C-alpha cells in the first residue's frame, strides 16, 4: 500500500450522464515514470485532472499514498503534486513572478524563492529570463517556463498532459532528459499523457493504455472500428472488411482488438473450437526480439507474433499463405 503513489478503485467519471472514465483498479507506484497513451477522447486529460484533484470523480475512490483523498483537505494534498496543462497558461506578470507563485503560496522565503527561480530557469535553458513579461514570450518559451514553474515546487508527483504536443523537437528532447533526471535524482513519480507511442516507450517504466475511458491491455493492437450484428446466438463484429465472432460484455460495441499473442498461425486450416479463422498472405515480417512479428492481410491487416523457431519450421516468408485462428473470447470489445 505504501509503495503506491496513487490507487484508483472502482472510479467513474460522467458528464451529463455519459461515462467518460470507468476504471476498476489502477495503481501508480512511487518513483516511476508512467506513460499514458490513448486516442483523443480516451479520457487521458480527465484522468490526469482527477489524479491532480482538480476534478472529483462521479463515483469511486482515489487514494494518495494510501490516504483517501475524499477524507482530507484536498488543497494540502494538491501541494504535493503539480500538473502541467496541455496548453499551459502563464499569469500576466513576469517570468519570475510566475515561477515563484507556487513558492509564495507555500510560504517560502523570498531569498529562497529567488534562488529556486534562478535554478529552474537554468534547468530549462532560459537563464536570465526573470524580468521578462510573459506576454512577450514565444510558444516554446511559455512551455519551458511552465515546466520551470512546476519544477520549482519540488513536487513528489509531476503530471504532464501531452507536454510535447506543440513544441519543437529540441524542446522534446530537453524535456525528456529533464524528466528522466528528476525521476532518478529525486525519485519523483511522473505521469505523462502522450500521443506518441515512441515517446511513451522511450521514457516510461510502464505504459498505461486508455481506451474509451477504460484501462486497456497495453497498446491495443489489431484495433478495428465497426458494428455488431447478431446472427442467431452468435455475435459478429463487422469491420466492413471482415466479420469476427465475439462475446460482447456490453450492449454497445464500437471497437474490437485482438491481442497478437492470442492468434494461432498455421499453414493449413486447423480444426479447433475457436470460432475465428481467416486466411491471408504475409505482407510484413520483422524481428521483435524473442519473436517474429508478422503482418497478415486477411481483408484487414492483422498483426501476429510467432516464435523464431516456428517461423523457421513453417518456412514462412513474405507472401506466404497462412491461416490465422483465434477464439471469440480472445477478442476484446469496447
Amino acid at each position, binding site marked *: 500500500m505504501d509503495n503506491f503513489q496513487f490507487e484508483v478503485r472502482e472510479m467513474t467519471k460522467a458528464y451529463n450522464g455519459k461515462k467518460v472514465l470507468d476504471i476498476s483498479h489502477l495503481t501508480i507506484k512511487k518513483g516511476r515514470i508512467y506513460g499514458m497513451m490513448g486516442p483523443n477522447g480516451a479520457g487521458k486529460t480527465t484522468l490526469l485532472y482527477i489524479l*491532480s484533484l*482538480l476534478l472529483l470523480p462521479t463515483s469511486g475512490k482515489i487514494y494518495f499514498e494510501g490516504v483517501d483523498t475524499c477524507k482530507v483537505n484536498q*488543497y494540502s494534498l*494538491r*501541494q504535493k503534486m*503539480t*500538473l*502541467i*496543462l496541455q*496548453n*499551459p*497558461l502563464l*499569469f*500576466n506578470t513576469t517570468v519570475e513572478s510566475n515561477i515563484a*507563485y*507556487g513558492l509564495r*503560496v*507555500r510560504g517560502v522565503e523570498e531569498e529562497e524563492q529567488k534562488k529556486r527561480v534562478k535554478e529552474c530557469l537554468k534547468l530549462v535553458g532560459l537563464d536570465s529570463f526573470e524580468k521578462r513579461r510573459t506576454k512577450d514570450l514565444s510558444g516554446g518559451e511559455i512551455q519551458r517556463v511552465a515546466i520551470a*514553474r*512546476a519544477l520549482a*515546487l519540488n513536487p513528489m508527483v509531476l503530471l504532464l498532459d501531452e507536454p510535447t504536443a506543440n513544441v519543437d523537437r529540441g524542446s522534446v528532447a530537453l524535456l525528456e532528459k529533464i524528466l528522466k533526471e528528476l525521476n532518478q535524482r529525486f525519485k519523483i513519480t511522473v505521469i505523462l499523457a502522450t500521443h506518441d507511442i515512441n515517446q511513451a516507450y522511450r521514457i516510461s517504466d510502464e505504459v498505461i493504455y486508455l481506451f474509451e475511458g477504460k484501462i486497456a491491455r497495453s497498446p491495443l493492437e489489431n484495433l478495428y472500428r465497426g458494428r455488431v450484428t447478431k446472427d442467431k446466438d452468435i455475435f459478429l463484429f463487422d469491420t466492413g472488411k471482415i466479420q469476427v465472432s465475439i462475446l460482447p460484455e456490453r450492449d454497445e460495441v464500437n471497437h474490437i482488438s485482438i491481442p497478437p499473442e492470442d492468434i494461432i498461425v498455421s499453414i493449413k486450416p486447423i480444426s479447433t473450437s475457436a470460432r475465428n479463422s481467416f486466411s491471408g498472405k504475409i505482407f510484413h515480417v520483422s524481428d521483435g526480439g524473442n519473436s517474429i512479428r508478422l503482418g497478415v492481410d486477411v481483408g484487414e491487416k492483422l498483426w501476429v507474433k510467432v516464435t523464431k523457431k516456428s517461423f523457421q519450421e513453417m518456412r514462412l516468408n513474405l507472401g506466404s499463405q497462412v491461416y490465422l485462428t483465434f477464439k471469440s473470447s480472445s477478442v476484446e470489445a469496447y
Partner: protein
Amino acid sequence: MEYILEGIRQAVRLIFSLDREIFSIVLLSLKISTISIFLSSLAGVPVGFIIGTNEFRGKKLLVTIFNTLMAFPTVVVGLLVYSFISRQGPLGPLGLLFTPQAMVIGQFILATPIIVALTISATQGIDPRVKLTAMTLGASPLRTATTILSEARFALMAAVIAGFGRVIAEVGCAMMVGGNIRGYTRTMTTAIALETSKGEFGFGLSLGLILLAVAFSVNILLHWLQLRES
C-alpha cells in the same frame, strides 16, 4: 454672447485665483464619491466575482438585473433613499437626511450595480486555465480567487473607474438626499444646478469646467487601462 463670454472670464478667474469656496466644493465632491466607490468596490467586486465565476440557476436573470440597474435613474435612487431616511421613514431616527452620509448611501446604490455588472463580465472573460493553473500550483481557494481577480485587474480597474465616473457626475440623488448645504453637502453638481439658477453663471461654469476635467481625466485613465490590457 457677451453674457457667456463674461461667464467664462469669471470662471477662469475663479479657478486660477484658487477660490476657497470652489475648491472646498470640489474636495467634498471627490471625498464623497471616493468613499462611495471604495464601499461599492468592497461589496461589488466580490459579488460580481461570485456571480461571474460560478454556474447556477437564475444566473442569467441576475446578470440582467444588474445590467438594468446600471441605468438606474439617479432621482429614483434619491427618492428611494429619501423615503427610508426622511423623518417618517424607517431609518428616520438616525437623522441621516441632508448629510454627506446620505449622499454616500445614494452613490453607493448607484455605483454598486455598475461595479457588479462589470466585474461579472471581467471575471467571465478570464481564461478558465487561470483557475486550474492556480490550483495545480497549490493555491488555496482564497488565493485562487485573488489570482483570478489579479488576472482581471485591468478590467476591474475599469469597472471601478466607470462607477466613479457615474457618481461624481450625478446630481439628482445628491440634491435630494444631500440638500446642497453650503460647506457641508454642497458638491460640484448640486452647486452648478443651484448657482446657475440663481444667476451666478460664472461660478457654475467654473465648477462645470472642473467637473469636465475630472470626467475627462477619469475617461482618459480608463482608455489608457483598456489599451494596456489589449
